[in-house]
């Protein structure tokens, strides 16, 4: 057991590894505008017993999402299966977002209990819960009495 310096701003290793794999982003001729329009924003939160990933992808349904674990990577992808008939591309006057198809990947730490991963889609946000394995859970602060 090492005694490590307390680093309040230090992030866990997963966070260091979090920078997503740019190879997974669509290149689309380096048109950054297109990437911005179709890539959902993601928040990651670490709690004592789990990590929580929130993906802001409005306008989809639960069935459109796919979550896959492969070689320690979590791949989040979506493909809109039912495009509204009236909303074909030609009728758009102005278009600033389009989340009909995307993919983002994140490298996970090995302290994640992969069997326990759960997700739900609510009000346009996909919320993924990634529980930590028992050994990695943070213990509650313990007060030491002065004798």
């Amino acid at each position: 057991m090492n005694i490590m310096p307390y680093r309040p701003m230090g992030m866990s290793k997963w966070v260091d590894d979090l920078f997503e794999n740019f190879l997974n982003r669509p290149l689309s001729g380096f048109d950054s505008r297109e990437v911005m329009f179709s890539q959902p924003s993601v928040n990651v939160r670490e709690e004592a017993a789990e990590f929580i990933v929130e993906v802001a992808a409005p306008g989809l349904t639960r069935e459109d999402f796919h979550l896959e674990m492969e070689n320690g990577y979590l791949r989040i992808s979506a493909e809109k299966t039912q495009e509204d008939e009236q909303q074909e591309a030609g009728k758009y006057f102005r278009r600033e977002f389009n989340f009909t198809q995307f993919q983002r990947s994140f490298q996970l730490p090995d302290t994640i209990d992969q069997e326990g991963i759960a997700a739900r889609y609510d009000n346009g946000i996909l919320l993924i819960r990634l529980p930590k394995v028992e050994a990695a859970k943070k213990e509650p602060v313990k007060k030491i009495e002065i004798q």
Partner: protein
Amino acid sequence: MRFIAYKPFSHNQVPTRNFPTSQRTFVPRANVLKKEEGYEIELAVPGFSKSDFEIRLEAEVLHISGKRTGEEKDQYARREFGISSFERRFIVPDTIVGAEIQARYENGVLRVLLPEKKVAPRRVEVA
């Protein structure tokens, strides 16, 4: 009376990013569609509830706003979006029937339907 170029749904608010990263107000992304009965505005505003929105038409300007009062957790390891109050304005054609504007919120998208008066074009004869 001024003559100005006809550019419905034009405005000077240009969203610079997808979603806000702080508590400040943000400009949500919008799509505008032409429909048979008029126009439809789609606003990407995930994480709200129906009662957070306010929509009003003042002259030819449509104001769409959303209020967030809830607290946000702040121990984020990575933060690309936040859920905060917003307001967005659109200049709409004066053929929109204000009393018939409808809105619904579904899967994080606020859809505002703006029905249009049917006005037959008038031909002007050259004398």
